[in-house]
Structure formats: structure tokens, C-alpha cells
């Protein structure tokens, strides 16, 4: 298993190595030592590669991941797994703001808490947060699922399109055009699937509430102008 020590190896060499793996090749595992908050660690992965990061990372770790499996044994800075296409990203610690921003696919698991704007503008990604999430999460979320085992901060799901939000704990406040919705069987089933994928064992789907778009802002209506 190749080990890349960022204390001695330039970031460029790390990412170049990861990019040299083609879609369709066999899975390879890289271990990354001493990330120490570096930015853009393991970005642009385009093939089946497993990356184990031993330590905490800075901005945009695993950005645009497309098929890789990245685990951070530490915390992640802003924009982790931003615009993920496919694959899995797991953060053992906390994640800073913008986690999973604009993600289009794949699964992001945050074992600790996520800060504000978790899943902002999400476009298909599934995000599972074991802890709490900060304010403005899932802002303008277009599609995908955001599952929170803890509490959610202010203005959850503001200006939401079709992303689906599930929160087990308290929601400090809902954003404009976001409402609580009925939990139907298919939702319970979807949650169960996500728990399975994200390695969540200790909670049951029934403990969650579902939130989604009231679809009031879909076409402009003067009587909703205050919500803009």
C-alpha cells in the first residue's frame, strides 16, 4: 500500500498519482500521512481508488470525487467532497462549512458534526451526518438526501427544490419554502438503505422527520414575494 507523506511530498505529486488511475482499473489503496490541514487533498479522483487520510484536511478534500473511496481519519475543512459525482467519502471527525456542496452523486458520511451550509445546492448526493449540522444547510438543495442523526441549525432547507431532508433531532428553524412532510413507507425504506450504506446501526428510520419543498417559489407569485 503506497504511503504518501505530505510533510515531504508536494500536493501535486499526490494528486497526479491519484489521477493516473484510470476508470476501470483495479482498486488501489493510498495512505496519506501528515495532511495537517492541506487544501485540495485527493481532488478530482476519476477512478476506483481508496484513499486513507491519517489526519485532518483543509478546504475541498475529495472535491469532485468520481468513483473513489476517501476516508479522513480526522476533521475536514470547508467544502469537503464538493461536487462529488460518485463514490464514498467518510469523515471520521467533524466537517466544516459547505460539506458536500453541489454534490451530484455518491455518499458523504460525517461521523462528527457538520458546520453551516451542509449540502448547499446539493444536486443528487446522499449525505449522512452522525452529529449535528449548522445553519443554512441544504440551501437551494436540488436533489439527493440529507440525513442528520443529531440536530439541525437555523434555516434548514431554505429555497429548497427537490432534495429530501431527514432529521432525527431538533430543527432550530426551517428556511423559506421548506416544510415538514409526511414520512411515507418509501421514505422509511430509503432511510434504511442509507443507514446500511453509511454504517449506521443504532437508530431507526421511524425516529426521523422528513422535510421538503413547499414548492411555493417554483414560479413567481406576487403573494410570496416576501419569501424571496
Amino acid at each position, binding site marked *: 500500500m503506497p504511503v504518501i507523506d505530505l510533510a515531504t511530498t508536494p500536493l501535486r505529486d499526490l494528486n497526479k498519482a491519484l489521477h493516473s488511475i484510470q476508470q476501470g482499473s483495479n482498486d488501489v489503496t493510498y495512505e496519506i500521512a501528515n495532511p495537517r490541514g492541506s487544501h485540495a487533498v485527493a481532488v478530482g479522483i476519476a477512478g476506483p481508488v481508496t484513499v486513507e487520510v491519517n489526519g485532518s484536511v483543509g478546504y475541498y478534500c475529495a472535491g469532485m470525487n468520481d468513483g473513489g473511496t476517501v476516508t479522513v481519519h480526522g476533521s475536514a475543512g470547508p467544502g469537503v467532497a464538493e461536487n462529488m459525482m460518485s463514490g464514498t467519502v467518510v469523515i471520521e471527525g467533524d466537517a466544516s462549512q459547505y460539506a458536500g456542496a453541489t454534490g451530484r452523486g455518491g455518499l458523504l458520511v460525517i461521523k462528527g458534526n457538520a458546520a*453551516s451550509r451542509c449540502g448547499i445546492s446539493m444536486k443528487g448526493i446522499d449525505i449522512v451526518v452522525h452529529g449535528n449540522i449548522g*445553519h443554512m444547510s441544504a440551501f437551494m438543495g436540488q436533489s439527493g438526501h440529507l440525513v442528520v442523526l443529531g440536530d439541525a441549525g437555523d434555516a434548514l432547507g431554505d429555497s429548497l427544490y427537490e432534495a429530501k431532508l431527514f432529521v432525527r433531532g431538533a430543527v432550530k428553524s426551517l428556511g423559506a419554502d421548506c416544510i415538514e412532510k409526511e414520512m411515507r413507507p418509501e421514505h422509511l425504506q430509503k432511510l434504511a438503505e442509507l443507514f446500511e450504506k453509511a454504517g449506521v446501526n443504532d437508530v431507526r428510520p421511524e425516529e426521523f422527520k422528513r422535510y421538503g419543498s413547499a414548492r411555493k417559489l417554483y414560479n413567481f407569485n406576487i403573494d410570496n414575494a416576501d419569501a424571496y
Partner: protein
Amino acid sequence: MCGIVGLFLKDSRLEPQLGQLLSDMLITMTDRGPDSAGIAIYGSAAEGRAKVTIQSAKPGIDFADLEQDLAEAGLPARVVLKSTHAVIAIAASRLADVRSVLAAIRPDVRIMGSGDSVEIYKEVGLPKDVVARFDVRAMGGSHGIGHTRMATESAVTTLGAHPFSTGSDQCLVHNGSLSNHNNLRRELIREGMTFETQNDSEVAAAYLTAEMAKGKDLGQALTSALDDLDGFFTFVVGTKSGFGVVRDPIACKPAVMAETDRYVAFGSEYRALVNLPGIDSASVWEPEPATVYFWDHQKAA
């Protein structure tokens, strides 16, 4: 736009290393602010003594015979030179006289900060050069804050660098961009404040000074800042006994905190914290928007 670092020591055995630790944190934030850098260090206060940090554009002239001239002006003091800055140590009872005496004998000298324990150093240039110039690594103390600046709309000058002094033993660093600083500055000027720069952060500093002058404590002043300041900001404020942090309600400029038994640390990015002892087992989190945080030696004591 800028980088901020702050370090508050709980474990007094770390105090000799404060300058060393803070310097490394500051240099890590070079990418966020290559234009200028500054640092405020809170040393142990000597009983009955106070300090004034001053800066000069022509230190060779202004600092020559300063100790002697102060003495002649009736202010017995000790002057320690640090490149373009100097620290004047005097009896605490005479602190109020320093400003007027300096205005008379060294009209071009600028006062960076004053108090029982604070020393403020700031200059134009890369953080590593600024740190080296003032030999920050050799400084000890109980807590300190630092700042690296990427100028947005105001000039890159020494006076535009942070920290800004907001009162005795108080100073402020800022990351973000205020959108109502021009109006606020006009109001504060009307209230009698003076300004050296076009910098929005200086307005924030003056605002806090003015609010506290009206009788608010620092926490109350920061709370009212949340109402009165528009735009994006993260403030870290140093006081004699600790520091405070507050972010704007949108909170999109980055901020990370770490706490262990030995210290509380603040950084614009996690990178700034990675060299702290025991960081791997520290509790690391991000401050909430529109929330005022405080760490205080006296309350801890």
C-alpha cells in the same frame, strides 16, 4: 480578506513558547494575507507597570535618545527597540500622560497600543518577514492574536495592518468585508473618534471602543456590533485577560477553534492549528454565527 490566528494558554508552562507557537500559526496563514501582518502579545503584567507600543516610519530618528527625552519631559521610562516599533515601559499611573508627551516630543510617532500587558507589532510584508523583524518567536506571554492581510479596497500600509487597538490592553483583528463602514466612520468621526486609514476594520475597532466608552463591556459591545455592522466579518478581540470571537450571522468567512487542557486556539483554517501540541486529541469546532465567545484567565482563575 485575511487570515486570523489566536492562542490562549491555560497551561502557564506553555507561556515561554507563546511567540513561537503564534509565529508558526501566523506564517501558515500567508496565503490568505500576503500584504501585511501583525501580532498582539499579552505578556505578564508587572505590578504597577504599563507598556505603550509605538511605531515610526523613521525609527532611526524618532527612537534616538527617546528614553532620555521622555525622562526630560518628566516621564521616566524604559524603551526597548524592535525594528520599526518600540515598547515604552512606564509606571501604570503615568500611562495617560504618554500620549500627550509623545505628541509633543515625537509628533510623527504612532501609538499602536497600550496597557498593562499588551504589545502590538505590525508591518507591511510577508508574515515570515514581519515575524522575523520583530523577533516574535522570542516573546512569551499568556495569550496573543495575529493577523495576515490581503488588502481589498484600502491601501497596503503599516497603519492598515491589524491588530487595531481599541483601548487599553485591547485590540481587534478582522477577516471579512464590512459594507456600511463609510457611513459608520462618518458617525464615529462625528462622535469624536479619529481615523488613520480607509480600512473597514479600523471602523470596527473604533466602533467597539466607542460602545465601550458608553459603558458597555466587551461582550455587550460585540453583541451590539452584530446589529450595527453590515457585511461579512469574523472578529477576534484580545483583552488583558483573554480573548473573544464573534462571526457575522451569515458566517461564511472561515473560522476554526481548538481546545485542549492546555490552550484554546483560533485559526481561519485548520492548517493554522496543526502544529499545536496535542492538536490531534483536541476538541476542534467552528464557532456559531452571530454568537459571542469568550475565554478569560480571570474567570478561569
